[in-house]
């Protein structure tokens, strides 16, 4: 591999890793606060991408503006989903049943997308779609940069919310010790609902970023959920910084391996990392003590 190609792959890997990081952060958040495995996370991602595309098609405005609608919408849907569906599951079998429930939701979303917009592949065409900038011999598509910036800003915002606000402290407390959280007066049901909303909001942002740069179709979400699940296990279930670090590392690894191995084989790096993690360090590499409780 030449130096230039390496640099190019590295940059692409970082840019892709940023998007993975945001999406994985959402996924690990559900698990952290609720012990829920949210298979439908990537289905909502694709739904948001479709909404961005449709928004652009009908209004002619920039698909980024659809965030103004999809972020609050997804937040509310996430809150409702937790309060009215997930919280009905019996605590004792919550984790396993949540797989079934969210699998069904994923299928429903996929079916609805196909029903409403057919199985045809869709792509947003923008004035700046083909534009790229060149930095030190590395050419970067503007849409990828925008997607990365969006992901980075959202992750930063998520971090500030979790670290600096009273709600964030309540959410982390609920994640780390639900019983003690109730005993200091935190309304853990409400916090779990809001946490779910926050997680789904990351899917809205991620989906919009995705729509800028990818061809989308209803079953695309299956390509995303596997790597995302692998990332949150490698990063340590429930740990947001862990998920972000693992996402960046694996994103870069997949991107670098793509050159010698091709796209399909490069994807296996996620599953390889998953197997290695489960074999030698099941609690994850970057924090997250939650997995030890299983």
């Amino acid at each position, binding site marked *: 591999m030449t130096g230039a190609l390496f640099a190019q792959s590295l940059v692409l890997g970082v840019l892709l890793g940023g998007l993975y990081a945001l999406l994985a952060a959402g996924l690990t958040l559900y698990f952290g606060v609720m012990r829920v495995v949210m298979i439908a996370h990537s289905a909502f991602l694709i739904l948001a991408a479709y909404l961005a595309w449709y928004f652009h098609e009908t209004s002619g405005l920039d698909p980024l503006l659809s965030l103004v609608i999809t972020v609050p919408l997804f937040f509310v849907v996430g809150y409702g989903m937790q309060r009215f569906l997930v919280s009905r599951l019996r605590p004792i079998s919550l984790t396993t049943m949540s797989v079934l429930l969210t699998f069904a939701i994923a299928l429903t979303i996929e079916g609805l997308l196909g029903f409403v917009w057919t199985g045809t592949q869709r792509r947003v065409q923008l004035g700046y779609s083909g534009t790229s900038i060149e930095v030190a011999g590395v050419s970067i598509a503007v849409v990828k940069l925008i997607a990365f910036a969006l992901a980075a800003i959202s992750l930063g915002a998520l971090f500030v919310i979790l670290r600096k606000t009273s709600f964030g402290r309540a959410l982390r407390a609920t994640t780390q010790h639900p019983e*003690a959280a*109730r005993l*200091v007066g935190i309304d853990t049901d409400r916090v779990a609902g809001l946490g779910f909303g926050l997680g789904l909001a990351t899917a809205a942002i991620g989906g919009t970023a995705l729509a800028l740069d990818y061809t989308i179709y209803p079953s695309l979400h299956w390509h995303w959920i596997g790597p995302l699940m692998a990332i949150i296990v490698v990063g340590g279930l429930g740990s947001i910084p862990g998920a972000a670090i693992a996402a960046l590392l694996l994103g870069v690894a997949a991107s670098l391996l793509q050159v010698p191995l091709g796209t399909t084989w490069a994807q296996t790096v996620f599953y390889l990392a998953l197997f290695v993690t489960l074999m030698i360090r099941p609690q994850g590499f970057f924090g997250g003590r939650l997995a030890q409780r299983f």
Partner: protein
Amino acid sequence: MASEPTPELSPEPSAAEGPAAEPLLRLTNIQAGYGRAALVLRGLSVTVAPSSVVCLVGPNGAGKSTVLKVASGMLKPRSGQVMVDGEDVTGRTPQQLLASGLSHVPQGHSVFPEMTVAENVLLGAYTVRDRSLIAERTEFVTTLFPLVGERWSALAGALSGGQQKQVEFARSLMVRPKVVLLDEPSMGLDPKATAIVFEQVQRMRDAGTAVLLVEQNARRALEAADVGCVLDLGKVHITGPAPDLLADPRLAQLYLGGRPKEVP
């Protein structure tokens, strides 16, 4: 204060209650259990007088933790009454009970392990809005538990078991409760850490907080308590001043390792 004629309701006379002191916490005829399973508590009554340490002892599974969960609102009783300082609080949530002056330190480790000691202690004041009050109480708990101040910015999960208990105590006092419920605070601690825990139970009492203490380590706990209650089959079997219980041969045989203090 109370509209009910409380004395007749409690089957066991609460022997060592202060002269005319209205109890701060009174559980009356509590029946409670989990789901559809059989009742765990079957008509239990307990009172905690101001500035006293009441200790509940009993075998594993007797329902000791369940008593505390009912008192702090974590578990709703099927019947019976919970009174705090003369106010009927039956069926309230833990959040509301904190406001009524009840704080609960559960069994086992309960710090938030991936937060700092500071964050843990300040979360104890989650329901308190007044910043100056929070500052004042932080001062109070760090004086009462100097270790908490010393390890202020350490991760709570990195502390030893005994140190974590102190953080939990400090956290529970941030609402300046009238009564604090301690569930087996010495569990899993070495003798030295256990001694510190019991010394701090005294300090809490001296600082004006009544304590309802649950312990496996019955002898040690009764030595630290004013009143003892022996729980079995979901009821308080024997209750009385702690020194009397320690000397009681029946009890010694059953719960104190068969070595009564005053063997003839």
